[in-house]
């Protein structure tokens, strides 16, 4: 049986989770509504731009506006629309995407979500693991050649925006040494075949590299190293060293454990945000993720699609944070016994 204070803690966190999601949704909805974008105008104006005067008589066009507002569910007062979208949010049925009509929001997201999740979960976790381990290890050997080289690399790579690094990768591996074709891929139907793995690898390697290298050797490396150096200067670590504890033991029990708490929090938030996609990576590598979809939807004013993607992101971040809060008692005894 869980202690009462922990049950209270869990319930409180879940309550916070729900309140966060609700507030974030409301803010998103309000922002979308006050944006000066009207998708009906967008659709009709674009059609008008290409059709010339052949569009029809003005009265008929006026009728068309009415019809579009009706079928896109954009009629009604602000409150009515809010309630309608809230209802959709609660049932996780965002209806039909205006841009991709008649496809549903779920359908459209489902085409791209696997790509985004595969790329960002993989690259985020990998860069986190590599960055933290290298950061901690290097701090143990501060002043060594390896430490200096890694530090130099990090100093160079960290300020480079990842999209610049992405361009470099495209140039080197797409053109000079064309190991990776830049044409879009075709996934084999058998997902357990070697061909499938190779194809996915071919599609994901460069975009993943652009995120992993900058992420691992950039922020994760630098932050974990900085924290590790702080810990090394602490009395308890010095005491461990004086006791003659092996380096590996110091690394596992003294260093990594203390680094992990803030780093896991950062990781969880990073993982939560993957539902927003990686816009620039997607554009540069022509990668079919949620970032470009969200960008298209925002620009066009496709409320259902924007709310669909943003809601996933809201839920992702909020749930990830909540889970981390729930897991803290496992990692940090101070919380468990508070």
């Amino acid at each position: 049986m869980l202690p009462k204070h922990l049950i209270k803690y869990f319930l409180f966190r879940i309550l916070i989770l729900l309140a966060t999601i609700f507030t974030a949704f409301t803010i998103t909805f309000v922002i979308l509504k006050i944006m000066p974008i009207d998708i009906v105008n967008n659709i009709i104006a674009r059609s008008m731009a290409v059709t010339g005067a052949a569009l029809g008589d003005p009265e008929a066009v006026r009728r068309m506006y009415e019809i579009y507002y009706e079928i896109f569910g954009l009629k009604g007062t602000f409150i009515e629309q809010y309630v309608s979208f809230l209802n959709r949010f609660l049932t996780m049925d965002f209806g039909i995407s205006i841009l991709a009509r008649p496809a549903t929001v779920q359908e459209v997201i489902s085409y791209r979500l696997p790509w985004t999740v595969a790329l960002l979960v993989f690259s985020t976790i990998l860069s986190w693991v590599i960055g933290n381990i290298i950061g901690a290890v290097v701090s143990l050997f501060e002043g060594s050649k390896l430490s200096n080289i890694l530090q130099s690399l990090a100093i160079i790579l960290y300020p480079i925006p990842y999209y610049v690094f992405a361009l470099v990768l495209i140039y080197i591996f797409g053109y000079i040494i064309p190991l990776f074709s830049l044409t879009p891929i075709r996934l084999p139907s058998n997902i357990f075949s070697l061909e499938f793995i190779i194809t996915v690898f071919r599609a994901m390697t460069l975009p993943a590299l652009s995120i992993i290298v900058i992420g691992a050797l950039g922020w994760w490396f630098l932050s974990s190293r900085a924290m590790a150096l702080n810990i090394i200067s602490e009395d308890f670590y010095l005491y461990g060293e004086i006791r003659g504890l092996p380096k590996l033991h110091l690394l596992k029990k003294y260093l990594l454990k203390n680094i992990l708490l803030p780093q896991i929090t950062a990781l969880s938030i990073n993982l939560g945000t993957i539902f927003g996609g990686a816009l620039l990576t997607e554009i540069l590598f022509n990668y079919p993720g949620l970032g470009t979809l969200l960008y298209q939807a925002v620009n066009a004013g496709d409320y259902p699609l924007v709310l669909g993607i943003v809601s996933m992101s809201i839920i992702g971040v909020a749930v990830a944070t909540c889970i981390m809060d729930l897991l803290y008692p496992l990692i940090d005894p101070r919380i468990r016994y508070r």
Partner: protein
Amino acid sequence: MRKNWLKHRLSIYVLVCNFILLAVLTIPNSFTVTAMPQLPIPPGIPRGDVLVIENGVVCPGGWGPDPYQFNYYQVGWATACTGFLQTGCGSPLWYMNLTSGELILWLTEKPPIYSTDYKTLWIMLRKGISWSDGHPFTADDLIFTIEYCRKYPELGLCNVRITTNVESVRKLDDYTVEIKLKEPNPYYHYEWTMRHYGWPVNFYVIPKHVFEKIEDPVKYKFYPPVCLGPYKIVDADPTGKWYLWERLENWWGTKLLGIKPSPKYILFVALGSQERSVIAMANNELDFTEFTSEYVRIIMDRNPYAWAWNKRDFPWAWTRDEGTRELVFNILKYPFNLTEVRWALTYAIDYKVIFDAYKTPDGSSIVPNPLPVSRFYPLEQLYVSGLKTELMKYNLDTTPPSYIQDYLRVLGLDDAITWYKHDLEKAEELLKSVGFYRGSDGKWRLPDGKIFEVNLISLPGAEFSFPLVHIVADQWRRFGVDVKLEVIEAYWDRVYSHTWDVAFEWPGGGFPTLDWWETPREWHSKNCVPGARLPWVGYIMCYGLPPEKIPEGVRKNIEVAKTVFPDREKLDNLVEKYIDTPPWDPRIVDIVKDLLSIHLKYKFWITVFSPARYMVGNSYCWEGWPTLKERYAEPKPYCSSFLFTILGLKPSERCPIKESTTEPAKVPKGLTVELKPLVSEYPPTVTPTVITTPTMITITVVEERTRTIISTITTKVVEEVPTIDWTLLITMALVTLVIGAAGGYLIRARKK
């Protein structure tokens, strides 16, 4: 000491790393390794059987969020990014040959036949055509298409278009359709003629036997599409990055007309950016795309097989786009309601700077254009040269740079007509004539002392808006005008808020026919009502009307200025005459000239240029791309008439082929006829005698050549797109995580 040394060492490491990185990036091109194409095609298909094309500038990212949406008439459906649907699958009743303005009889056996009052149109369909699924194509399909659009208002655009024009439709026999129009309209056949893009410019017939079974038309995606063109879809990428089409071996065009396209497969890709297109074409993974002026030089350098408009010679630019680029004034706002101000701003622009800014290394650039009329045959001869005397009155530059004149000559254009003279004195004089004055800071002031501000807006990424709007803003600023340039994503909303002063738009242009194009129809004052394209044409229809006649939506947002337009009535009369005169009637020429003269006099828009587009074909695997000297088709990948470019191709011997034919398709000459619709007193099946055949004006242009090609489509693919219940999946994942966390905690607690 040691610390200093460490510091130095770190700097040395940083320098060495930087050096290595730079060295890698500057490896000379000679070290470039040739890539093996890795195209998204099924295994076993040789490269030479696949024509890889891209709609690089108009649609770089691929078609929208749902790549399986192939229903033309679905609300919100875009046009240019169709993944080859309209080019390979959709077939219009007629194509317009964009090199000559002639009509290509496609699904029809004859040109359109009008009744003498132009209230009835008879369409005679070709016999023996079948859909890609083998079902015969008949009058029932055409009638069904019209009735389908009429029946469902929720289809929006297609419903509006049909209900606006069509009174009734009926079948005279299996291959003859009679369309009764609401108003006399000798232009109605354009609705069914492919001139530009495809839908929503022109209608496509949909298969009755497929659509009549659909329960909810507004939810129907039409995938896989059943087609009338020569290709059927094989597969589509769920994320819309590519579409693979396969040639129909039993296509009606092959059986009836002997037309067989050479490429066995068409791979339509979206590479996402110009950089990627350059690399793909350099690696011979791409056969055709459009490049921007910044990138065409790179591809011409990197791939010796890349062919631009004049192969590898000057000029690379293809300048026959149907649209011109304009700066449109909001003439309902003060001071842009004043003709003097509009002309002053025109004279403050130096077109030579714009020409140079768009120039590519070969010398190609945009085509300076003083009128909203495309500069190609016959519009160039009829209206640009035809209005030379008129243009001279408005300070046309009589001493343009010789390199611009040379360029115009190579393109077969009138080298005496470039643009208006950059005349700041004249501009100053015009502004002063309406009470403006310069302040001590050199900036222009309105008569009431306020600074003269211009809010110039543009859509980001709008073709050819960059660097034009920046140059113009800069030149106006130098002239003393306070310009606020806004390049905004919410462009269309801004345009329809009416609050801007000058907008970068493209309402001008034209097709190679006497009637120029339909834009003057909108200029009539009866169109100054809600729902009309008011801002798109710069409110010409409202000019000269009292403020209370301006739609409330406009008046609500801006303070409508008083406009003086003595030619209002004349313009309305001309528009009425234009609408009543058939597009093939020689009398239309004078009407259009008069319309353009009024437009010129009042300078409603500043037409700046006809764009220069860089359509590049890679002749490594496929040869026969249309060029300046071999102009058998217009290479416009965003138009469904791009099919004719494909029909002119044949494989080179450099890439292995298996099933592609070795010769280009042969198109019977008889399919192309003069744009000379027939006029008859009776339906063709009752009395086939045609009583009137109006004559055409014939203008001979020496280097104009026409080689017409033809074909159609058929498609069949059945593939269910798997969808995932993400709600359930996410919920289950969350529950599992929470249970796992709680379990872990309990185990740990027990251990303790």
